[in-house]
């Protein structure tokens, strides 16, 4: 394959895209508008923010008071007092609360309210379990000391000493999975996938235009292999998709402090997703007749896939059915992978399944689209 024709096609296509002011607005400005506004709506901040947990309890009850104190002291939880159990359940169902705890007065049996298959709920449960466990430990230790003959005051003193001694032991939990990140940490990867896909679809308009005006058939009359022309067109779209992704990563890191995770893993995920977007763009460029159609069809399609994939709101808020449907499409796999990588201690090995699925989707889309595109440009 001669390098000249491929580079010529890529250079011409990129120059054309660089002159499309509307297209540039959607590539350079819109993603960050979305990241900022949606990110602020979801709580802002780059780090995984605290999980909202509602509690129905009476402060006067000693057990409730102890549990509440532990829960409030937990760094991952934001405790909200809720009036009654019904209100609590509505909050969890609606997604306003990651989980809820009901502490009946005078009882040591606590009721945890959460939705199934909810990542935030699972994380909240884990934190609540830890807090409740500590209270239970104190109660048990006090009982044991009392049973051994200590006065209540002495028992309390012994328990305090034991707690102080245990505070010297630092437990480092490398598995810091604390549910879905919030704020910019969530909207940056979501908008990376959303806009990489949408803008790839939109730039397919130039591909349709090249086909329509006979530019591609004319290129095939040059001493250039057909595959080189197709490769050049595909590479042009891939570069646009990859550039969109890199731009969002760099700017969100610098401005919003978003931590994307292990570079190799992120590069693999973003690379295969850009290939998926490239395949979708060429498929669009092969199927439609008018250069206005990609701009009309691409964004709504990208938004719907983004909704299903958890790019507009956390997938856990959509429920298991939509989550399953979402995983028929690339965005959900991309979100899973990028959110996993955003957690400390994760890497490429943790997202191999997602990368493999995205790679398969990319291979199918690229093969299908290039065959179709080649057929569409075969005749004058």
């Amino acid at each position, binding site marked *: 394959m*001669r390098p*000249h*024709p491929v*580079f*010529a*096609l890529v*250079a*011409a296509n990129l*120059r*054309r895209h660089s*002159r*499309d002011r509307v297209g540039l607005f959607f590539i350079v400005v819109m993603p960050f508008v979305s990241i900022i506004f949606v990110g602020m709506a979801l709580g802002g901040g780059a780090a995984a923010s605290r999980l909202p947990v509602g509690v129905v309890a009476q402060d006067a009850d000693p057990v409730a008071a102890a549990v509440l104190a532990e829960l409030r002291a937990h760094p991952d939880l934001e405790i909200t007092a809720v009036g009654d159990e019904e209100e609590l359940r509505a909050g969890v169902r609606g997604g306003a609360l990651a989980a809820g705890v009901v502490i009946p007065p005078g009882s040591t049996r606590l009721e945890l309210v959460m939705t199934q298959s909810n990542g935030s709920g699972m994380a909240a449960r884990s934190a609540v379990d830890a807090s409740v466990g500590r209270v239970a430990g104190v109660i048990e230790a006090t009982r044991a000391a009392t049973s051994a003959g200590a006065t209540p005051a002495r028992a309390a003193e012994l328990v305090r000493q034991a707690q102080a001694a245990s505070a010297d032991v630092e437990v480092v939990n490398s598995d810091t999975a604390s549910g879905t990140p919030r704020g910019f940490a969530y909207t940056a990867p979501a908008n990376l996938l959303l806009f990489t896909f949408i803008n790839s679809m939109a730039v397919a308009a130039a591909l349709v*235009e*090249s086909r329509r*005006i*006979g*530019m591609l*058939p*004319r*290129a*095939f*009359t*040059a*001493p*250039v*292999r057909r595959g080189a022309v197709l490769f050049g067109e595909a590479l042009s779209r891939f570069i646009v998709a990859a550039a969109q992704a890199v731009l969002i990563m760099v700017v969100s890191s610098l401005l919003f402090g978003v931590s994307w995770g292990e570079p190799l893993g992120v590069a693999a995920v973003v690379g295969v997703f850009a290939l998926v977007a490239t395949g979708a763009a060429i498929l669009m460029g092969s199927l439609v007749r008018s250069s206005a159609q990609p701009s009309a069809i691409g964004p709504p399609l990208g938004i719907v896939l983004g909704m299903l994939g958890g790019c507009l709101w956390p997938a856990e808020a959509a429920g298991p059915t939509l989550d399953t449907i979402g995983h028929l499409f690339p965005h959900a796999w991309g979100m899973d992978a990028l959110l996993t990588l955003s957690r400390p201690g994760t890497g490429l090995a943790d997202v191999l399944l997602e990368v493999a699925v995205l790679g398969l989707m990319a291979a199918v889309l690229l093969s299908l689209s290039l065959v179709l595109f080649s057929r569409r440009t*075969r*005749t*004058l």
Partner: protein
Amino acid sequence: MTSTLTCENLSKTYGGVVAVRDVGFTVAPGEAYGLLGPNGAGKTTTISMLVGLLKPDTGTVVVGGADLAADPMAAKAKIGYVPQEIALYPDLTGRENLRFFCRLFGLPRREVRARVEEVLDLVGLADRADAKLDTYSGGMKRRINIGAALLHRPELLILDEPTVGVDPQSRKSILDGLERLVADGMALIYTSHYMEEVERICSRVAIIDHGSIVAEGTRHELVELVGGADRIELTLDGDVETALAKLRGLGGVTEAVRTSAASVRLIAEGGRYLLPSVISTVDGIAAVTAVEVVEPDLEATFLHLTGSTLRD
């Protein structure tokens, strides 16, 4: 002299419908070859096979000694193709479009700048080279469309309707430029709906209909195919019927018909030279108020061979 293009027995069938059947011709260096035919006759399919866009079912195409099927890269490097549509990027400038085609055709980087300037001068667009193509007039776009096919100095230039929608001034500029290229030794294949362009540019013409070449030759040879008789249109004032009877008996007149109350049409060999005899024959019977002698032309030949006008 060795031909720049030799094509033999080209055939192409689409789903049982024969688009082109056994088409073959040669074009020599410095020769302009016209390809005429009504819409759907098979011109575009033939051209698509000549430029390598379509693979023929049968037949061969050899350009500058390179077989298009066996060595497509070498053969394509010798062809410049000007499609009917403006196949250029509208959002790039004229210069950028030409640079793109230089790279597509593999011109060495150091030659690109000079060659682009040469071609811009050749097509008369050096002063608009840095304007975006979508700001060009129709004629300017046509000129740059041709220029893009000349960058790699092809031995054979194939033009498919290169002057469609062009104003007379631009058309003249394009035709003048093509004549210079032919004079410089470039072989040229030209299709057009404008018969006068083909008559002006092409030394040989093939008339293609229903996928086959129905006639081929110089303009003179083609006209001879339908006979060399001229048509004389007369408008008379007087006794038209008597005048018509007299004219039928005039030597050299093969046919005389009344076409309206005051008009008569004569078919005669060497009509221009017969005109004085025609006028003296009707003298005293009717006054000749208007006369037109129409020589046989390619249009008439085309009509005769294909049964349609070129714009059908």
